[in-house]
């Protein structure tokens, strides 16, 4: 079965420390990979995507993500977390042969403490 896994329900980090949110996937055909963030009572906001090429992609708000094909992972990172980064983060994959259907992970709640 095809799946997207975010193994941590919650990640706690102190402000200024590096932040990592993990994502692994089991989807055939070299899918496109995305990260979205959801703030309370808001919709999903796009952060970044991996299509092809360089394994390290940079996105909005200082976030970046590292694609690892052998491990089928796409971990989200930020070198120095801010309190305002506290939110729910979703990894999503899209098969290249689809019409854009996004398959989401369960989400990881990030809590950044001052």
């Amino acid at each position, binding site marked *: 079965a095809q799946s997207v896994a975010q193994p941590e329900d919650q990640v706690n980090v102190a402000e200024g420390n590096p932040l990592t949110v993990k994502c692994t996937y089991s989807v055939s055909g070299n899918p*496109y990979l*995305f990260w*979205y963030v959801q703030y309370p*009572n*808001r*919709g*999903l*906001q*796009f952060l970044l*995507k991996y*299509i092809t090429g360089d394994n390290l992609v940079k996105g909005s708000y200082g976030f970046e993500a590292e694609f690892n094909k052998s491990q089928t992972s796409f971990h989200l990172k930020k070198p120095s977390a801010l309190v305002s980064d506290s939110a729910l983060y*979703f990894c*999503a994959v*899209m098969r*290249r042969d*689809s*019409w*854009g*259907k*996004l*398959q*989401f*992970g*369960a*989400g990881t709640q990030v809590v950044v403490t001052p």
Partner: protein
Amino acid sequence: EPEVTQTPSHQVTQMGQEVILRCVPISNHLYFYWYRQILGQKVEFLVSFYNNEISEKSEIFDDQFSVERPDGSNFTLKIRSTKLEDSAMYFCASKSTLSYNEQFFGPGTRLTVL
């Protein structure tokens, strides 16, 4: 910055009633989507829509659901006879033509079925 809008923000209905959720996608986008998120669960794909027809749908999207683009701007999701388990946050999304482009999500409609 253009954005996807959704109305209403919150809809309360009685079981068995019909509801229509409305979305205005970004104006030059051609692909449209509905997703739902049951409280505490992951975001689930419902349907994709392109060129005035459904291009892909999930198992959730049964005969009780329908989508329509009645004019050049609105995109609607209709649930003919709501069930308690239809209670969820419903997100509309749209994207432009390129297959790997990110989807832009609306703020969601919270549907409560009593």
